[in-house]
């Protein structure tokens, strides 16, 4: 290269047209406004709360994939968070209703035998359980 770096940059910028910069400006505005509005648009239910026997044992982000094991009264329940959804993978309970419920992205999965409650919410506590009947 014969010229100095500054000359090169100057040369590169000289060949651009005003419309290039207009386009660049427009695209940056579009993507940045999208970025800002997305933050507001996102559903508030982004926090996964896991409770055992009324005690809160985990508070996890719905956007972070991970698997956790929870010790309940009758065994270990495995909860998986993946792709902004939650499910119970394994449970020691006899009827496996919690597993059959599958993936949720809002609401709650309740496993009564093992006393595990998985809620997807905005972070405010749901108030706990009033009563359990069997």
């Amino acid at each position, binding site marked *: 290269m014969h010229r100095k770096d500054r000359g*090169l940059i100057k040369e590169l910028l000289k060949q*651009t*047209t005003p*419309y*290039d910069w207009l386009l660049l400006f427009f695209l940056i505005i*579009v*993507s940045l406004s999208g970025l800002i509005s997305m933050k507001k648009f996102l*559903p508030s239910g982004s926090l996964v709360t896991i409770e055992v026997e009324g005690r809160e044992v985990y508070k996890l982000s719905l956007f972070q994939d991970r698997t956790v094991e929870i010790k309940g009264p009758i065994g270990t329940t495995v909860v998986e968070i993946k792709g902004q959804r939650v499910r119970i993978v394994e449970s020691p309970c006899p009827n496996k209703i919690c597993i059959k419920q599958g993936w949720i992205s809002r609401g709650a999965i309740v496993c009564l035998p093992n006393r595990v409650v998985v809620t997807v919410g905005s972070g405010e506590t749901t108030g706990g359980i009033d009563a359990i009947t069997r």
Partner: protein
Amino acid sequence: MQSQDRVRIALLAGYAIGLHMLERLIPTPIPWLRFGLANIITLIAIMLYGFRIGMMITLIRVFLGSLFVGTFLGPAFAMSLGGGIVSTCAMAVVYRTLPLLFSPFGLSLIGAFFHNVTQLALAYLLFVRRIEVILYLSPIILFLGIITGGINGLICGFIIKRLEPEITHIS
């Protein structure tokens, strides 16, 4: 097809595949972030030799590139093919209809934009099926596309500027 064209296609497609493979070796903070260096070659081909040769080079690059990497006919192949075809068409259409409005810098931005939009649409149709995930990702992807597309455009402009005297000399 003239033999001259064939040589050009072969040479430029070779460069495009080379860059395509090379950028796979460059580690990026996000796995799906790619620089799209092969787009430089596509844009050079469109500006110097026209849409037809540009499209041929894109197709050869996508097909051979995926064969070399082992993603042929897989999901990544569909994304690559769709993005490549649409961005090549977009750049060629803009360059044809408004030849002096944009420099390679602007054309590359257009190409990157259409590439990303197509890939997001394909990702929605083929895999994710959750519009909020796509909407959440799209501003980030479009913004990164502006940066990589802009840099590629500047490189492309530089190469074309250096090539032009030789090309007018030959033809």
